[in-house]
């Protein structure tokens, strides 16, 4: 049967879903509606290799327009401002109407903004898309003392890149550790030390009281009355799922669009994938919302299969990474449900991993090390987690013993 399949959102989840649908369904029309006038591209390099000029815009695209053409996938740059789920229609700002038989929502997430006086709204920069990355790259070339508000992944990756561009960087974090939302403190402290060793200033436990513009520069007043002078401010204070379009509809929302393990929403023939979806994970037996490269891709693929009629559960064990200076940090599974922590290694040069266990089984792990040093073990850990078996803690804790001994058992 030939269906009209519309994918709302032109990011990673959307493009991988589209290609997966096409693999299973040669007939249906597949149309991606994207708000950015760009084919889907990789976002991780924006805060790293793109700022450092090691990667150019053309290196970022997942697929060329030829790939989409060959697979008969349409991409349209359009902004949708109304959804009618009952009649299966999307309405664009320019009065275009799109009818669908199946809809995938992959609108992603958007940056939280600082609440500031109106006169400062255009002075604080955020980084999520290519346009913003280009602007930041251009402006920082003339700036020297840069303040990053928020000590999460994005802020720290930018701080690492700007330090490598010889800028003086200050990071202000409201919490008592860096990357506190998902990274264990032990690992965060190792990353913090590396930033400090490279000359970045890290300020924890401080809130911003006021930002004042002064002769083109800025003064940031903190809640301990200290004052920071800076000539450029970038904020990375978290994201929220992009769901505004659905707020007055029947679509069930709760920290994103609620989906089951098949990427199905509360409305028939409407699916959601990627950052925007608060999905049920059958292994962890709970809902979660993830913002990561691996998840966007795998969840998109899973949605694609289900849309094409190949009923598939999403069981991927979460995995994510961050690169800062010469460090590669990786996290697998979830690290907030445990009754025991096991440490493997204590030297960042050889990699340090913390395993989080519950009932003697691994639920998640987080590691950091010089690039290349934790990836293999974290990957094996994902497999061990998935196997859901009781593990030999001696092997986990001894870096001289290979973890793949556990997987072969």
């Amino acid at each position, binding site marked *: 049967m030939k269906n009209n399949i519309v994918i709302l959102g032109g990011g990673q989840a959307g493009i991988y879903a589209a290609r997966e649908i096409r693999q299973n369904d040669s007939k249906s029309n597949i149309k991606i509606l994207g708000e950015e006038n760009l084919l889907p591209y*990789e976002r*991780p390099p924006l805060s790293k*290799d793109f700022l450092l000029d090691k990667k150019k815009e053309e290196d970022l695209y*997942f697929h060329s327009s030829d790939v989409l053409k060959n697979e008969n996938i349409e991409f349209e740059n359009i902004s949708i401002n109304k959804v009618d789920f009952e009649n299966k229609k999307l309405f664009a700002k320019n009065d275009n109407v799109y009818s669908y038989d199946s809809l995938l929502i992959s609108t992603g997430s958007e940056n939280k903004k600082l609440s500031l006086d109106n006169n400062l709204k255009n002075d604080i920069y955020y980084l999520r898309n290519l346009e913003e990355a280009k602007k930041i790259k251009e402006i920082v070339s003339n700036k020297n003392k840069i303040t990053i508000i928020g000590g999460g992944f994005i802020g720290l990756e930018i701080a690492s890149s700007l330090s490598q561009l010889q800028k003086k960087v200050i990071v202000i974090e409201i919490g008592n550790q860096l990357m506190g939302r998902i990274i264990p403190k032990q690992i965060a402290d190792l990353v913090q030390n590396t930033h400090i060793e490279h000359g970045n200033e890290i300020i924890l436990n401080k809130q911003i009281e006021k930002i004042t513009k002064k002769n083109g520069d800025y003064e940031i007043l903190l809640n301990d009355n200290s004052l920071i002078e800076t000539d450029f401010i970038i904020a990375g204070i978290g994201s929220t799922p992009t769901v505004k379009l659905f707020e007055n509809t029947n679509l069930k929302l709760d920290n994103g669009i609620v989906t089951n393990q098949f990427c199905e929403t509360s409305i028939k023939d409407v699916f959601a994938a990627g950052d925007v979806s608060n999905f049920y994970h059958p292994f962890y037996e709970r809902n979660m919302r993830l913002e990561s*490269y*691996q998840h966007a*891709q795998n969840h998109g693929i899973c949605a694609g299969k289900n849309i094409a009629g190949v009923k598939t559960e999403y069981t991927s064990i979460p*995995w994510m*990474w961050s*690169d800062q200076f010469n460090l*590669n940090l990786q996290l697998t599974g979830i690290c907030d449900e445990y009754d025991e922590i096991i440490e493997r290694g204590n030297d960042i040069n050889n990699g340090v991993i913390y395993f989080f266990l519950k009932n003697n089984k691994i639920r998640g792990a987080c590691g950091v090390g010089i*690039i*290349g*040093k*934790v*990836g*293999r073990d974290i*990957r*094996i850990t994902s497999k061990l987690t998935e196997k859901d078996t009781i593990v030999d803690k001696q092997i986990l804790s001894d870096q001289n013993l290979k973890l*793949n001994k556990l997987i072969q058992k």
Partner: protein
Amino acid sequence: MSEENWIEVGATDSIEEEDLIRFDHQDKTFCVYKLTDGFYATDGICTHEAVHLEDGLVMDDEIECPMHQGIFNIKSGEALSPPACEDLKTYPVKVDNDKIFIKID
């Protein structure tokens, strides 16, 4: 190709099965693998970002980059999973007198 392009890597027992070793020659880095059906060789640096594949995970016929989990087929070099999209170069391997040789062009 002339005979002198075969470069000795080391003894066949220097690699465990389903594992790899790194081999540096002149200014290049290679990975030499022992799979269930023999020895194979590829470039030693991931095509996605400059990281050594020696720290990667070998599973069946695949090598997975330790940095971002790009996956390559060891025998063909084909990039199988993003973020890697450029294939990995492969090299002929032969075993002579319990020694591994790779042919570098």
